[in-house]
């Protein structure tokens, strides 16, 4: 007998039990309903002022508002930070700007959390990704394309363009004894960055091709300094000050028309800055102070919601229902003695288990896909209505979350079915299935987040990583923790961990099924 009749008989067994079919419909409905509840329960925006009476000292205040500050999108549609202090000069056609950085120092906010950051409450200290150097952009609108060569706080000289591209130059910090010469050259659409330690011997660091660069661009000196998470998990703003010397601009129609401006530091902009930037120019020398960052946007600064951020709880509820149904699909046969009939009809026991796994896995997959396909747009809509910022995500990303949700439920169903086959009783299989997925979230409520993080790496709950869509960047120092929405594994790695558990339990189930009497 081939596989198809076995598959069809298992499919008939499943679809004719009304309770199971109702449970699956209920799983999808509850997934959507709880996505709505979670999305609707997050009226972010913010609260200021004193905490409500009776709540803890770290609770938010009582003056609440909805809506989120402006988060710019970069050239590829990704959310970015684009805040800096800029002293610029127009440049038509090809040209080169050269400057010497003679010092780079910084200030870190250390005032109490209840007081707005200001220069009055600071201590000396330079952020690792504080940046000072030369930047070229066709347009100073936030999120526009750019290329820049810069000295950084502790990552050496860097050539970066369009927020995500980075090439490292010489390491080391800038000081009076070890100044850095930087040079940025435009030739057509090509921007080249050079560095030098003495102003005579130059080394090329990187090249960027900025497509569609207009004839006239703006080039200039910039300073910025990102939020530091070293002393506080909430982050504190910082400021950097750089001294430039020997500033030389070569090109067509160069006047002395330098203009200073702050980019992305208004109260509507999301990126926290320490204070308004400032500059002081005398001849070829310039002292420039700035606060902000030019990089990929990261949580927690940008607000924290994604296309999938209200889906996970609904998916967990659906998962519990699927665990119960998938377990019963085999344990009920043992309980009722039907398993003996089944094995008499199909003596190849492996085929029976395989057919059951295909049926229950496919049904759970479809349930997850349908539920996520409805829940994700609904959740996004509600979050938008409540004024929450949502990280932009491409249609491909959304499609992968939907497929991932299906895979998460499908693999779980197969793993639990195998567990039910091994244990033959509902109680143990259902309990184990539920506790394994629920416990990492429960542990996270305790003080030790490290245990929860490890469980999301090593336990089957790693499968929830399919919901992790926040972009990561090595060019920003930020706490990529679960609390901020960053899963410890990538979606594929997480799914692979769950897959390994499903394969292992299925393997053991095949083995014991053949060895034991029914």
């Amino acid at each position: 007998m081939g596989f198809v009749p076995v598959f069809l008989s298992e499919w008939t067994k499943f679809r004719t039990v009304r309770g199971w079919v109702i449970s699956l419909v209920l799983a999808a409905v509850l997934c959507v309903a709880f996505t709505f509840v979670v999305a609707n329960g997050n009226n972010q925006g913010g609260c200021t002022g004193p905490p409500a009476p009776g709540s803890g000292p770290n609770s938010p205040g009582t003056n609440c508002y909805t809506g989120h500050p402006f988060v710019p999108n970069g050239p590829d549609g990704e959310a970015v930070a684009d805040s800096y202090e800029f002293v610029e000069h127009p440049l038509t056609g090809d040209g080169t700007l050269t400057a010497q950085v003679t010092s780079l120092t910084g200030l870190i906010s250390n005032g109490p959390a209840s007081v707005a950051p200001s220069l009055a409450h600071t201590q000396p200290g330079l952020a690792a990704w504080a940046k000072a150097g030369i930047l070229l952009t066709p347009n100073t609108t936030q999120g526009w394309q750019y290329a820049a060569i810069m000295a950084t706080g502790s990552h050496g000289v860097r050539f970066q363009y369009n927020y995500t591209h980075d090439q490292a130059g010489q390491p080391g910090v800038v000081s009076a004894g070890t100044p850095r010469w930087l040079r940025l050259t435009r030739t057509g659409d090509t921007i080249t960055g050079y560095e030098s330690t003495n102003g005579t011997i130059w080394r090329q660091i990187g090249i960027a091709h900025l497509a569609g660069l207009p004839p006239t661009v703006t080039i200039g000196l910039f300073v910025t300094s990102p939020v530091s998470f070293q002393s506080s998990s909430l982050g504190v703003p910082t400021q950097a000050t750089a001294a430039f010397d020997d500033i030389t601009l070569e090109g067509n129609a160069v006047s002395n028309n330098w203009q200073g401006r702050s980019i992305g530091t208004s109260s509507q902009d999301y990126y926290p800055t320490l204070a308004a930037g400032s500059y002081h120019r005398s001849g070829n020398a310039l002292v420039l102070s700035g606060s902000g960052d030019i990089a990929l946007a990261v949580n927690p600064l940008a607000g924290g919601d994604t296309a999938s951020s209200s889906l996970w709880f609904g998916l967990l509820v659906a998962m519990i229902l699927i665990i119960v149904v998938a377990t019963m699909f085999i344990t009920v046969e043992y309980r009722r003695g039907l398993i003996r009939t089944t094995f008499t009809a199909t003596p190849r026991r492996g085929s029976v288990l395989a057919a059951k796994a295909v049926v229950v896995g496919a049904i759970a997959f479809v349930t997850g896909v349908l539920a996520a396909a409805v829940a994700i747009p609904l959740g996004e809509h509600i979050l938008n209505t409540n004024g929450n910022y949502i990280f932009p995500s491409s249609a491909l990303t959304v499609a992968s979350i939907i497929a991932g949700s299906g895979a998460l439920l499908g693999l779980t169903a197969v793993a639990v079915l195998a567990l039910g086959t091994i244990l033959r009783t509902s109680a143990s299989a259902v309990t184990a299935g539920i506790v394994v997925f629920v416990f990492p979230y429960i542990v996270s409520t305790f003080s030790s987040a490290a245990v929860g993080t490890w469980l999301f790496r090593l336990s089957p709950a790693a499968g929830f990583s399919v919901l992790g869509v926040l972009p990561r960047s090595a060019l920003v120092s930020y706490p990529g923790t679960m609390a901020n929405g960053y899963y410890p594994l990538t979606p594929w790695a997480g799914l692979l961990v769950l897959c390994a558990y499903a394969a292992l339990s299925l393997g053991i189930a095949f083995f014991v099924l053949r060895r034991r009497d029914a």
Partner: protein
Amino acid sequence: MTDALRAEWTKLRTLTSTGWLLVGTIALTVAVSAGIAAATHLTAESGQDPTKLALSGIDLGQAIVAVLAVLTISEEYGTGMIRVTIAAMPRRLVLLAAKSTNVAGLTLFAGLVAVAGCLLAGRIMLPGDGLNPAHGYALVSIMHGATLRAAVGSVLYLVLITLLSLGMATAIRDTAVSIGVVLGLLYLPLILAQAVADPLRRLILQISPMPAGLAIQATANLRSLPIAPWTGLGVLAAWAVASLLIGGLLLRLRDA
């Protein structure tokens, strides 16, 4: 009633699963507490609660006592034994009362051992994590009034969880579905509370059985709790009573 108690006791005692589940409850509770204590370290934010940390194994241990309670009734339905039982003891509410008393007594015993083990683990391990008098944290001690309340309350918590589970299983009758519903009811509200903001978060923590009931374990920052310790345990007691009433009513009204 005595006969009913004795009959149910014999059934419960002669099942091998009962012993394993009780041992499992104690072992799992103490092991999780010890594991959490080992992973804990002193954080900059003040207000860690050594007693609550020491008793955190209850969060997982309760799943096993819930399973024990569910099995005492649902397995009778699964095997058809319930018809024999009801034929022998036609007064069904007496039957449910006998089952409740037996399973609550067993849980009381297991809970006492488990809580004692948890407190001992906390007493030995937490000072090494920095939660010691040098950093302003008292040693976990039963002589401390709040800790005594947390310990006694945790045992009562387990007993109430047993009764809640038994009531729900009486109403639902199927093992897998009962366990799914009971564990979902216990764990999901706490997780949902993490996903939403106030005031919904606070409301969930006040009215759900597990978060409200576990308020009894708090010995620090009592003012910032969503619900007071004994009030919280009262909420869980209300859940247990309601569940037993509904279970009892359905047992009385339905054919077996």
